């Protein structure tokens, strides 16, 4: 049996029945990593020794018959979440040797639940990008076509899940960084409501937009992980004191009578025909399951990308100021303090990060603040209102996750604007703070996965799970695996 192919629930069943051991499961995962990682390049750090050290405790829990939902489950973590004692690079040269002295809230919750940390996955430097081509170290490859990118910024996590190099993974999503790579890699990616999951220990890109979420082989695994990582955290003031339901409880519930909004602004002239066809087919499928499609309008959609790039870069310019070579991470020499600062940041950051720091510094500058940052905040309010209005009449909104399937490495690398547009369908969700999930809904003629995005109300991940699970169970897209 190829244990690395298991999902969380199946692995749980076999572990609890003592048909397999935690060590055997880890062995299988690392055998798979050994076999495919040189092609996929999903990992920044492979934490093999550490993983085996972690194995004893959950095995004991299992043996005692009191296993927790993640006891012994091998999971990969995007390399922008701090793991105590394991280097956390954000795929940036400036943090190349940064070993956090503390644990992020999400990983400590996973730890308490007995997970096994398999490794830290590659990303676009500081989560800034849509392809992992902005990684300070290497580009991860799409397991469905190694010439193509896996999407980003959580490209390493999405590729690792698609290539079965882990059972599940965590990613972070600021403008689509979980959903877009999940879509491009044919896996399930959830960005929860802003405030649902603690950001403590997530290296900040844009604090008001960043949210940690899951990348999994199917919808149920996402619900299982969400049960563990969700909930108020006293270390994160922006985490919400909202009760966390058992997300698996709604799986299998009927979706009959649910109103599904189809925003006309998301089916635009010139969008990829194959993507459009797959998404329209998916809507038909949902209709056949009893959902009622309703055409809606999200009138300020056109401003989302511009608004996002003003706000995200503004916050980033400030969040990244701490990488100054003084206290930790990379330091370049300089003839004086200012020189050291400048050399450190010039050599430590990549081009895209610098581009965004410059942009954000500009938009916050006196004389420009009102025209850019303040205006963008106002537009953000309008975009939020769009969603609030829409959710007065519908239970969820369905759109494509990305305008195209995976593109070739290098194809958009020199054109940042073109690259920014790959997040055109996902960005509004971050701006308004609502949850969104991407699930596989078909393949292009090139055998590349296509993703369907379902968007829900604030703190209504349950509706997303319900709809996504109903769709998933009535289709077979999620069962296809890449050939590598």
């Amino acid at each position, binding site marked *: 049996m190829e244990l690395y192919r298991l999902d969380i629930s199946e692995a749980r069943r076999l572990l609890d029945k003592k048909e397999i051991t935690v060590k055997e499961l880890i062995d299988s995962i690392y055998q798979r990593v050994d076999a495919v990682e040189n092609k996929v390049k999903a990992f920044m750090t492979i934490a093999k020794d550490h993983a085996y050290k972690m194995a004893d405790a959950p095995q004991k829990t299992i043996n005692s018959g009191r296993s927790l939902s993640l006891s012994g489950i091998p999971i990969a973590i995007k390399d*922008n*979440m*701090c793991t105590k004692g394991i280097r*956390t690079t*954000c795929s940036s040269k400036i*943090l190349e040797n*940064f070993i*956090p*002295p*503390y644990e*992020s809230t999400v990983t400590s919750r996973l730890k308490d639940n007995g997970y096994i940390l398999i490794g830290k996955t590659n990303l676009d430097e500081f989560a800034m990008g849509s392809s992992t081509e902005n990684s300070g170290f290497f580009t991860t490859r799409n397991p469905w076509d190694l010439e193509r990118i896996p999407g980003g910024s959580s490209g390493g996590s999405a590729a690792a899940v698609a290539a079965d190099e882990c059972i599940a993974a965590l990613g972070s999503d600021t403008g689509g960084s979980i959903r877009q790579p999940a879509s491009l890699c044919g896996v399930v990616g959830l960005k929860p409501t802003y405030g649902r999951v603690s*950001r*403590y*220990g*997530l*290296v*900040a890109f*844009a*604090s*008001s937009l960043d949210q940690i979420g899951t990348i999994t082989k199917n919808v149920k695994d996402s619900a299982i992980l969400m049960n563990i990582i969700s909930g108020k955290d*006293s*270390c*994160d*003031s*922006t985490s919400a004191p909202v009760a966390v339901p058992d997300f698996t409880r709604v799986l299998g519930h009927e979706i009959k009578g649910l109103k599904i909004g189809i925003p006309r602004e998301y089916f635009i002239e010139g969008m990829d025909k194959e993507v459009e066809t797959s998404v329209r087919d998916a809507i038909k499928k949902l209709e056949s399951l009893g959902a009622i499609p309703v055409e809606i309008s999200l009138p300020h959609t056109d401003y989302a990308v511009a608004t996002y790039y003003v706000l995200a870069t*503004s*916050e980033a*310019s*400030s969040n*990244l*100021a*701490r*990488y*100054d070579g*003084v*206290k*930790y991470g990379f330091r370049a020499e300089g003839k004086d*303090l200012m020189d050291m*600062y400048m050399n450190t940041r010039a050599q430590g950051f990549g081009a895209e990060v610098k581009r965004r720091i410059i942009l954000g*510094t500009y938009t*916050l*500058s*006196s004389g420009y*603040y009102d025209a850019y*940052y303040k205006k963008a905040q106002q537009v953000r309010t309008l975009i939020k209102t769009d969603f609030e209005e829409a959710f007065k009449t519908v239970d969820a909104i369905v759109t494509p996750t990305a305008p195209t399937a995976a593109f070739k490495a290098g194809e958009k690398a020199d054109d940042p604007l073109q690259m920014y547009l790959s997040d055109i369908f996902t960005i509004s969700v971050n701006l308004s703070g609502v949850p969104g999930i991407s699930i596989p809904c078909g393949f292009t003629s090139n055998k590349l996965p296509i993703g369907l995005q379902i968007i829900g109300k604030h703190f209504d991940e349950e509706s997303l799970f319900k709809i996504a699970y109903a769709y998933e169970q009535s289709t077979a897209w999620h069962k296809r695996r890449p050939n590598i």
Partner: protein
Amino acid sequence: MKYEAVIGLEVHAQILTDTKIFCGCSTKFGSEPNTQTCPVCIGMPGVLPVLNKKTLEFVIKTGFAMNCTISPYSRFARKNYFYPDLPKGYQISQYELPICEHGYTEIVVDGNVKKIGITRIHMEEDAGKNIHESASGGQGGNYSFVDLNRAGVPLMEIVSEPDIRSPKEAAEYMKKLRTILRYLGVCDGNMEQGSLRCDANVSVRPAGQKEFSTRAEVKNINSFKFVEKALEYEIKRQIKVIEEGGKVLQETRLWDSNKGITESMRGKEEAHDYRYFPEPDLVPIMVEQKWVDNIKSSLPELPDVKRERFVSEYGLSEYDADLLTDEKPLADWYEEATASYSLSLSGSKIISNWVKGELTRLLNEENKTIEECPLKPKQLAEMLTLMDKGTISGKIAKTVFEEMYKTGNDAEVIVKEKGLVQISDESAIEKAVDEVIAKNPKEVERFKAGDEKLIGFFVGQIMKLTKGKANPQIVNELLKKKLL
């Protein structure tokens, strides 16, 4: 031409919380460098601030004491700049929506009451400290050390309206502010240790002119005694510039207490664009009315009210009441002594004289504060009772008081141990009187010839002989009887 100064003060006060403003580290002064730090206050990647509620409470208290409006909705902002002692590359402060606004306080200058407006009071975090040293330990070397124990210590900034018109008013305002802060127990008010810091905005204009002239900001006024001096210097300097046909520049100037002058920082500061924007890691502060009401009702009696009460309740002069209420512990000491001595008005005046006189003298001799006073208020009251009973004389009382202060023993014990009981035995006193008369025939003759002032000389001699223990009333009676 006559000129008028226009002064506004920005005062930074360190808030007396046990822990820092956004993490749990201790705020204790004087520990080994970098021992009171954690990932949050040293700005590790991924950490988040959580507001210390005590800070908020203390600032609201101050707001009430300064007659401010407490904003129901307030928020933090980031002030961005690079400096090695600023771990995140930004300081979390308040900008657009401070917690307290529109207040005032009253000062008395030359007998006139004057209202000074308070523009705002806001919270912020302190930075660390840079220590510049060369490898050999001298000044001006190649090395700088950063101590982050102070980073994240809570501060409040109290900004006055430009209502101050003279250095004397500024000094009174600072004194008043310090008294209030100490009364509230929110700041120890120690300028020399830096827990109270004062920057001044100063301009001068021809008397009668309504418009403000260009102002200079004077920083580094690091002691109470320099508030007046620095401002006097700066006002004179600006008048001289104007009279010589020059223009006052808008600039930051540093007070140099050794040279007694202010010096331009030459663009170092003012080139800064702090790029303020709302802090996305902290939710807006929405204070509950009930909590704020509770804070208000728990305010101690403030100095102005206490002073007036001392006048009406204890029959003290304004001057004495002011002196006794300047520091809350002194006022408390006074009230406790009064309560255990007597309810009559003369009693409270007698206590006032002892506190202002002997007690203050003894404390000053040892540079002690009233809080360090070894003498308990009750002990003074008991000593005064002994005086009333005639057990000791007023003269002896001073000795007894000093002895109580030094040993901490009660008056009764001291009187007994030292044999200080007043001699009221007429025959014993008569012996001394006779002896003095016999020894000083010349003076006796002069006295008899009409030099009645010599009575004092005789009393003095008798007291010397009886070591001050003779009952002065009896001495007087006997002298008159024998000499006349």
